[in-house]
């Protein structure tokens, strides 16, 4: 019982509940099913990206280029849809994923083959991918009236009065959960992040896993490229700018250690939910949207400090009695 109470994921879940109740007291409209389903929809993209970022953080790296990747993939398919509105939506989704994966593979190659440290690589591609959007779009926006109906329809599909985005996030959660906990690939990611030198001895090919992790991160960034453009019915050079920080904070809050090899899929989702909840709750309790960024920053710091504190407490004990 004590173990459950001290479990990170449980604590996180309790915090989410407490915030939900507290905000509900201040503004009962916030805890209606409609409002909660909106929060879930609004957080879905964050959940998907946090889960894929988690894969990268597990192997002691970070992908700072996800938001730029998302925006570039989204812009490319939007431009295509203005020229070829007749193509089916599945085509655009697949294409977006392919573009995203390609950009992810480029990150992976730079890190694994060219040995450019991940911070440098993904900081570099953060601006390269963002810059390319200007090039392909000439700095113009693609507006909602330029998309085909088909392109936007999928996102409005609902099941059990919950949105397509939410159900997609659930599917991604299940896939990543199985991938990380029940496949050799996933377990090897944990071992590589936990002890890279030892992982080599058991035959884990580090370069292969780096490229795979970044490809997956790219794949989901590409997927979210479509989702973002379709949900907000706009593609521009500015979409999702700075969103990589929100994604990373979701992971950190969710207990994914930036030292690698530690973290649960459930924790990651809870982290994303907490961040999404706070972002949505601010207007409900009359806090200006301009506070959002500052609050996310404060949450990252708070979460990382708490994480480190609890880790450090587990010092080796020499004496039995004290």
């Amino acid at each position: 019982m004590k173990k459950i109470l001290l479990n990170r994921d449980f604590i996180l879940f309790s915090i989410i509940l407490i915030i939900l109740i507290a905000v509900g007291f201040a503004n009962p409209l916030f805890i209606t099913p409609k409002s909660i389903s909106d929060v879930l929809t609004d957080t879905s993209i964050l959940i998907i990206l946090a889960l894929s970022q988690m894969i990268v953080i597990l192997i002691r790296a970070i992908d700072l280029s996800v938001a730029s990747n998302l925006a570039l993939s989204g812009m490319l398919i939007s431009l295509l849809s203005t020229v070829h509105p007749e193509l089916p939506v599945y085509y655009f989704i697949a294409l977006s994923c392919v573009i995203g994966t390609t950009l992810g593979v480029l990150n992976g190659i730079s890190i694994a083959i060219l040995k450019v440290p991940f911070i440098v690589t993904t900081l570099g591609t953060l601006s390269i991918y963002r810059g390319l959007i200007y090039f392909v779009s000439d700095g113009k926006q693609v507006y909602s009236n330029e998309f085909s109906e088909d392109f936007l329809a999928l996102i409005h599909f609902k099941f059990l009065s919950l949105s397509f985005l939410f159900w997609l996030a659930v599917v991604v959660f299940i896939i990543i959960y199985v991938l990380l906990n029940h496949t050799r690939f996933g377990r090897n990611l944990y071992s590589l992040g936990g002890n890279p030198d030892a992982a080599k001895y058991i035959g884990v090919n580090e370069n292969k896993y780096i490229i795979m992790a970044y490809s997956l991160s790219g794949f989901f960034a590409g997927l979210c490229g479509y989702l973002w453009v379709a949900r907000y019915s706009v593609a521009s050079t500015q979409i999702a700018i700075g969103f990589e920080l929100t994604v990373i904070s979701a992971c950190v809050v969710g207990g994914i250690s930036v030292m690698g090899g530690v973290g649960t899929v459930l924790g990651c989702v809870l982290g994303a939910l907490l961040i999404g909840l706070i972002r949505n709750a601010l207007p409900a309790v009359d806090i200006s949207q301009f506070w959002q960024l500052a609050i996310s920053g404060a949450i990252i710091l708070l979460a990382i400090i708490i994480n480190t504190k609890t880790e450090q407490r587990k010092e080796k004990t020499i004496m039995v009695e004290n």
Partner: protein
Amino acid sequence: MSLIPDKPPFKLLDILYKKEFILFVVLVSILIINSNISPYFLDLYNLIDSTFLFSEKAIIALTMTFVIIARQIDLSVASIIAVSSVVLGYTTSLGYDTWLVLLLTLLSGTLCGAFNGAIITKFAIPSIIVTIGTMSLFRGLAYSFLEDSYYNKFPKLVGELGGGYLYGYIPYAFLTFILLAFVFAFILHKTSIGKKIYSIGNNPDAAQYTGIAVDKYTFVLFTLNGLFSAIAAIFLSGRLSSVRPNIAFGWELEIITMVVLGGVYIYGGSGSILGVVISIFILGMLSFGLGLLNVPGVGIIIFTGLLLILSIGFPSFVRTLRRKNE
């Protein structure tokens, strides 16, 4: 006493392999190419004015060099500029005396830097993650304070510093950068402070066990980085003559690029101020040249990103190939 020489016999060939020399060759080639492509490039006034494009970033790049050599990184500098600029605008709007305004602006940056340093050393958290957090926090504070308005009134001195020239020729920002570069080169390469910073970056544990106050140095370096961001904020606000919360957005990347391109190893322990200064000129002349060719700003961003990756990736790739051939 046996005589062991300090250095191996001087060989001209060794210079050719120095990072600084390679960077210098790149800089000269850029200057030659630029002057061939555009007749306006070698115009003295144009060249002088082009320094406005990079001087503020270059000032922060100096302290960032120290931070990175000490095996840390600071992604929050651009957000500190935002905080300091807002403080500058706000204190002016309150009608404070110019000197008090400047003092409070510098103090705000210093406090932000000290905040970074305190969290990093007090809780032993990697600086990359702390400064990702403070990057949002500081920028967010600027946003929440200013919302969608802006400041456009600053003391006269600030406007003069940002856009003015000494004797009508040398921009104050550029002058400040050059003077500071000499000071920083001296500290890094000639004093025990510099040597301790290298030791910390090279092996922080060994440095601690040798009695070097690693945490104190780390804290001071981050504080200094904050102070210099505030100095840059004064020049920048004066030059732009308007401050919005999104000021200097994305600058942390350009500043880190300046440092890393200059041959400072991203995981600490090696690098020189000379290399960073040359790299600053390379990037500055490059964007100036591309600007003259009417290449838009994003083209320069893409180019910078590529340069950053390739400048590290290419040499290490060649090294790997060579090792395989052995």
